[in-house]
């Protein structure tokens, strides 16, 4: 079978899917807002699956509620009943729960019946953000991005002035909490007052505390989202986040928009740091320079192993683009880059095959490669390929621990990533 990069599906079904749904991306985005109550509007299974999925990936309690649409309400209700009843029931059962915001996201079921989720908002006193995320459209990455856009459009107040050193990052879905934290820290090193929307770095970063989250535990506050239009700079990372940045610019045309497809490898990070230097008219801190030199060294150290190796990589488009660029920069051959959904950014990938598909498709290339970089589901399949290494990245990673602290971004994370894959390759290539 020939694979090509197109919008069209090449078969009627998915076998061993890697794609995840829009509402799940929306839930995760809302979990990056402090004290938010993500409320999924659909049958109870959607939220239950989502909760288990992220609980196992992050090893943290996941605060998501649902409106439990039944076969009767599916036909008779326009959304008002089940959404308002859900909020009432939660508040009457848990008296001390005070959400800062309700993050309502729809599902395939409630989109098919066409609920007016905007209208319901008029009857809700708590700040309310709605987003239409049918799971028969897009994927987890678009659900995340649509939610960020919705929060900006519905919460952020328009402004005309900007604060020259205020900056907001719009990270793509696949960035783990520590990655957001590291990028924030780098911007802060340049003297920026830095925010991230959403901010998983303070909510799902895996820290221990007494209180168990009935609401999102940390993240950016609703007040901070309201005042984001006074940022001088918005930085979108990942093609999927461009539209969200444009939505913020609409709130204040004076905001400067910087876009990066990814922050992996030397080139993209040189570009990133150069842009920050230009805005702040300053040199990077010594440690940033030091990490660049370490990345250079890692590239040289790992180029032989990686440069003689072949890869299959699967995942969300924005993650794929970054990983492929980094691996290509040290000479790795990418036999197949298999994406969950279509994105224009996929055209930039240098690989033998780039296409939208599933693990059944990806498996066709497993014989030819030394390493597969994929999610948890590739592990069992690879049991029958003894000479192929696996590095797990992307959602979900059900079994490994510490997923929220895996950093592949910037000079620092790229360095660790190169060493991790080179060491994994060594085991299958030289130990026989």
């Amino acid at each position, binding site marked *: 079978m020939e694979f090509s990069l197109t919008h069209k599906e090449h078969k*009627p079904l998915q076998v061993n899917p890697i794609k995840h749904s829009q509402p799940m991306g929306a839930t995760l985005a809302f979990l990056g807002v402090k004290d938010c109550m993500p409320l999924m509007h659909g049958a109870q299974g959607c939220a239950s699956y*989502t909760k288990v999925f992220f609980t196992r990936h992050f090893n943290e309690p996941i605060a998501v509620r649902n409106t439990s649409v039944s076969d009767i309400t599916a036909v008779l209700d326009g959304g008002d009943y089940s959404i308002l009843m859900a909020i009432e029931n939660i508040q009457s059962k848990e008296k001390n729960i005070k959400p800062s915001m309700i993050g309502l996201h729809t599902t395939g079921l409630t989109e098919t019946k066409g609920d007016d989720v905007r209208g319901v908002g008029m009857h809700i006193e708590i700040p309310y953000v709605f987003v239409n995320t049918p799971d*028969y459209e897009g994927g987890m990455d678009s659900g995340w991005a649509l939610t960020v856009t919705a929060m900006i459009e519905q919460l952020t107040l328009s402004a005309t002035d900007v604060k020259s050193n205020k900056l907001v990052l719009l990270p793509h879905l696949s960035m783990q909490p520590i990655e957001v934290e590291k990028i924030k820290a780098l911007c802060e090193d340049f003297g920026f007052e830095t925010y991230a929307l959403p901010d998983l770095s303070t909510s799902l970063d895996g820290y221990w505390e007494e209180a168990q989250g009935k609401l999102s535990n940390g993240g950016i506050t609703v007040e901070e989202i309201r005042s984001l239009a006074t940022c001088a700079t918005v930085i979108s990372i990942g093609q999927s986040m461009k539209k969200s940045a444009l939505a913020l610019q609409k709130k204040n045309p004076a905001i400067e928009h910087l876009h990066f497809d990814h922050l992996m490898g030397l080139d993209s990070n040189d570009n990133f740091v150069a842009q920050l230097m230009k805005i702040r008219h300053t040199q990077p801190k010594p440690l940033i320079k030091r990490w660049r030199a370490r990345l250079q060294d890692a590239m040289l150290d790992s180029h032989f192993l990686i440069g003689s190796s072949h890869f299959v990589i699967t995942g969300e488009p924005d993650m794929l683009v970054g990983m492929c660029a980094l691996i290509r920069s040290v000479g790795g051959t990418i036999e197949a880059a298999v994406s969950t959904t279509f994105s224009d950014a996929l055209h930039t990938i240098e690989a033998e095959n780039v296409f939208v598909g599933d693990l059944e498709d990806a498996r066709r290339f497993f014989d030819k490669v030394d390493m597969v970089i994929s999610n948890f589901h590739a592990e069992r399949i690879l049991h029958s390929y003894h000479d192929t290494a696996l590095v797990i990245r992307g959602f*979900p990673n059900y079994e490994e621990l510490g997923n929220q602290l895996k950093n592949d971004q910037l000079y620092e994370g790229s360095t660790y990533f190169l060493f991790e894959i080179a060491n994994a390759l060594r085991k299958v290539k030289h130990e026989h």
Partner: protein
Amino acid sequence: MVSRAKIKELMNESACSHSKDKKPGEGCDKPKPGLAAGGCAFDGAQISLFPYADAVHLVHGPQTCLGASWETRETKTSFTGRDHTQMGFTTGITTNDVIFGGDKRLASSIDYVMEHYKPEAIFVYSTCVTALVGDDIDMTCKLGSEKYSVPIVPVHAAGFVGSKNLGSRLAGEAVLEHLIGTKEPEFTTAYDINLIGDYNVTGDMWQYLPLFEKIGIRVLSSMSGDGRVGDIRTAHRAKLNVIVCAKSLITLTRKMQEQYAIPWISVSFYGKRDTSFAIREIVTALGCPELMARAEAVIAEAEAELETALIPYRKMFAGKKAVLNTGGNKAWSIASGLQDLGIEVVATSVAKSTQDDIDKAREYLGENGVLMTKPASEQGKIIDSTGAHILLAGGRSLYTAIKKKISFIDVNQEKKTSYGGYGGLLNLAEDLKYAFKNPVFANVGKPAPWEV
């Protein structure tokens, strides 16, 4: 399509102990907006059927239904062919299918599956969206069955019809309607049973099946742990239905009693006493004195073997007290296991239990045992007043263990080993041994230097 009459019938199961306290027609609880956190009917149907590894499970719906649920359960199989249980198949419908209907996509998907995977059967699951837009799944499956001469079974358990429990019942209906009674077994014995409701999670069934073999009990078919579609088709020839720890499939066994005159019993294989009791129940129901005698011999041998293996653990666990905070039948089944190991269970939670479960918990814990109705607020005090050494609970209770500096086991966490049968008790003992020895709960809660 699934009819409202069928759902009503399933929700009012006469053989179910829950129905005793309800007014006529009231039936099982419907999920309430905002409060229900559990799985949906589709989830329940999948759990009940997915262990058929020789069948392909094709989910006709949008991305969430299968994308977030495949390869999440450790149901083991001895099937030597391709294990379809740990694979995911979904039509992953898109906007076009919602507008124009997804029947064509489903038919092509069935063709694809038959061409590439040649399974013994296909289960096709309808989901909220495909049920709502009215895809004619029955017809597509019927045409597919005729075309390929394998059972293609429609499972009508869209998420919005109700809870996980109802979904299991609907899966039972699908099996009863489309599979059971469609094939004759190669041979039968007087001791043929069907196992209903054990999904062989972490290999639970394999803890007790070798004993069955020794006694001479033959498992004709299973719904559905380590099951084969070919076998469940012959289930109507069994002499007895044995439900394992599952209330949801009572409707199936009741109907099989009505249609095929197969009696049923309900048993559990957690802990020594329950396992022995379960075996005795089965052989008594099969009614053969010779079989009963063999069972007694096997039980005696297995119990003696277990007792010997448990000696070092019993020494280690002497005088230990446990507080148990978990739901449903685990409230007494784990308690029973702990007691078998010589641990005193001072309290268990009955917050989410049925009356049957509460009665059983009382029976196991005795008069002095505390049955907690508000475990979150009670368990800390009970640990203090009884001097309990270990808390077995869900992750939310971790802080209580840290505050009280006692050992902890997360009983809701995905288990990797089986606690079933006699052998499972040794696994539980091993886990407890490490839990008692582990200082982490005392260590981790120490105050930070800036807090002292």
